[in-house]
């Protein structure tokens, strides 16, 4: 059976990675293979990593307020690389009012403070089109 592969990425100038590490650990314990990129990644870096790792999910964490710029940029670059079918999700300090815009840009779900890790795990399990053969 194919394992679900998830990139946990921190785009932009934001060094607050406690949340991302908690997520990485929770996804690991859910049986996923998690590639943690480390902090301060450019959208280009994240797209290349998703490409080389053939990731099913790109999960981004951002607490700097630049989500409206960086999240859609990653989706755009993924599409350029032919990876438009990958599940992209975001999390962090993101105002409710920004969520409709982000979803319109192709980020499938946003997890704000207080979300349970199970919510993300279940969301991934339900939404990854794993081409198991």
């Amino acid at each position, binding site marked *: 059976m194919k394992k679900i592969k998830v990139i946990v990425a921190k785009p932009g100038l934001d060094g607050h990675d406690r949340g991302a590490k908690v997520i990485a650990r929770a996804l690991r314990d*859910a049986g996923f293979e998690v590639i943690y990129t480390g902090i301060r990644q450019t959208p280009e870096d994240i797209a290349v990593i998703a490409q080389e790792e053939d990731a099913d999910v790109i999960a981004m964490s951002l607490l700097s307020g630049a989500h409206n710029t960086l999240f859609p940029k990653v989706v755009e670059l993924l599409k350029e690389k032919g990876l438009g079918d990958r599940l992209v999700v975001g999390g962090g300090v993101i105002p409710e009012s920004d969520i409709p815009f982000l979803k319109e840009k192709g980020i499938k779900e946003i997890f704000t403070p207080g979300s349970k890790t199970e919510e993300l795990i279940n969301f991934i399990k339900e939404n990854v089109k794993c081409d*198991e053969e």
Partner: protein
Amino acid sequence: MKNNPEFIINGILSGDRSVLARGITIVENDLNGAEEIISKIEEKTGNAFILGITGPPGAGKSTFTSSFVTELRKQNLKIGIIAVDPSSPFTGGAVLGDRIRMRVHTKDENVFMRSLGSRGALGGLSLKTSRIVSLMDAFGMDVIIVETVGVGQSETEISKTADMTAVILAPGFGDDIQALKAGILEIADIFVVNKSDLAGADKLELELKQTLKLNYTDTSIPVIKCCSTRDDDFENVYSEIKKRVDYFKKEKILDERRLNRKRRDIYDLIKSEIEKITEEKIKKLGGIDSILNMTDGKVYLTEELKNLVKM
């Protein structure tokens, strides 16, 4: 993306990075078409030099690899990196963190990196590692670096997969050199004493050199001291490793290892075919439980069972 073998093979041979990535996924997960891809790609392999990097956790394997790749890129070589990290024996999950140390190469089109979970294999690599090496080889990589999980003493699988193996040590891990002797220290073609800025590095270097003098028939194994975060050190690292590679070529050690690898690979292939036959046989005999019934629940080969198996 399409998964059919022909599309994958053509994509890999024409240098399409996304297709290489997908091909690795297919082979790693043994999805449909994996066998066909591997068997057809085999004839396009044999050009890459495969360097294994191993050593205890935290010795600096990833950081060393990153700096060494920087040096290799100055020679305009195309580089593949396969980095293995441990999978959980309980959930099968893994956190693969080697990319964090190699970020300077992310956007370099001539470097392709893939992270693998060890998925229950205990030798420091994953079972599919050598097949993934073949895909990268066929893709046109000049050098493929295979980094193992952080190892203890007995994970020597890398020496069978790689053309040459570098064992990375750092001060603080090496006080018990003597105890480490059998096992990973035996597979080193090169020793690297990393973190040379730390106290104890000189002592470790000395201990290694003395151990080599006492115990090894091959007295030409170099001990290279460096600090992996210092790019300046890597001109020397490169020239030492290059010397070693030249020696391997001159003494035909490389040819011998590659021949041994072929012997082992074909042996393994036959073994896995026989395993399939075993499965069929067991099925024919009515499954493992009815076989156990034949022996009254005991684990031994009765004459009757031996004859049934031979039939």
